[in-house]
């Protein structure tokens, strides 16, 4: 756990953050160019299939973000360190963003292909994590907030494998898995390569947003601490010579 947090701290460094930001921007721009102009359209769905290059990576980042919430929540309950709560809060916020994007993009893809807007178990997942973020706003003390949020972060993760497996378990309008399945992927080579590239670009975007959000979280935690409980700036520890004689002699006793 300590090594994982140290790795996150290195990624959150100012210079690493700048590099990751530039790489994210380049990766996302390349995804747009390749996804819209380079890869051929699908034989049956036509151009609308190009939404796959943003919908599926958004869903991947959503699963990853909620997975990080689960791990960080468990780490907080085990160690009681507030930094794990900060990781969970940051990841939940980003996960909610990508979850909403997954639903919107899925709906935009589903409407012309199936003739209906798409709204599934993913909406339940969105509600769970919106509830998680709301809970963080109502708790009155940081320790209580962290404990409640960690419990919800662990229990809420139960829905993640259900959402992932729902396309297999329930034969709905949603197509079956084409990449993560037993046997070879059933998607064309150029489409698969573009999809994998988009996975990398979106994962970079997640890492970059996590780094920035962690920095914001640290600053907000500092600004939330009451002024009276902070040491005064530039305060120095009193030397024995500054102390009254009785106190100084007590400290040596």
């Amino acid at each position, binding site marked *: 756990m300590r090594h994982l947090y140290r790795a996150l701290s290195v990624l959150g460094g100012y210079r690493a953050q700048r590099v990751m930001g530039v790489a994210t921007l380049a990766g*996302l721009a390349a995804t*747009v160019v390749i*996804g*819209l102009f380079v890869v051929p359209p699908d034989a049956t769905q*036509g*151009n*609308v299939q*190009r*939404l796959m290059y*943003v*919908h599926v990576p*958004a869903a991947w980042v959503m699963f990853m973000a909620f997975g990080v919430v689960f791990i960080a929540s468990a780490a907080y309950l085990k160690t009681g360190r507030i930094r794990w709560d900060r990781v969970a809060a940051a990841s939940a916020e*980003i996960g909610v*963003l990508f979850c*909403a*994007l997954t639903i*919107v*993009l899925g709906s*935009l*893809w589903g*409407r*012309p292909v199936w003739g209906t807007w798409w709204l599934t178990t993913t909406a339940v997942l969105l509600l769970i994590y919106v509830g998680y973020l709301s809970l963080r706003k109502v708790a009155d003390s940081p320790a209580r907030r962290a404990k409640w949020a960690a419990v919800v972060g662990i229990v809420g993760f139960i829905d993640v494998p259900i959402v992932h497996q729902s396309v297999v378990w329930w034969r709905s309008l949603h197509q079956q898995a084409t990449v993560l399945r037993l046997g070879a992927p059933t998607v064309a080579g150029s489409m698969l390569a573009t999809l994998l590239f988009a996975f990398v670009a979106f994962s970079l*975007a997640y890492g970059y*947003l996590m780094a*920035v*959000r962690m*920095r*914001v979280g640290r*600053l*907000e935690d*500092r*600004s939330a601490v009451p*002024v009276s409980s*902070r040491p005064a*700036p530039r305060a120095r520890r009193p030397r024995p010579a500054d102390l009254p004689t009785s106190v100084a002699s007590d400290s040596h006793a």
Partner: protein
Amino acid sequence: MHDVGYVAAGYTITFAALAGYRWHLAVRMRRARRYVSTVTGRPPGWRRRA
């Protein structure tokens, strides 16, 4: 033709959402920095020397 509209809408929403969230984080960071610097009396971006 309608298909292109759905695709354009999807890509626009995706990148507008990402850019909007990044902007939102920048606003929050600026606000928190200003608060911390007001309370501590240190200029924004001040770092303790190692």
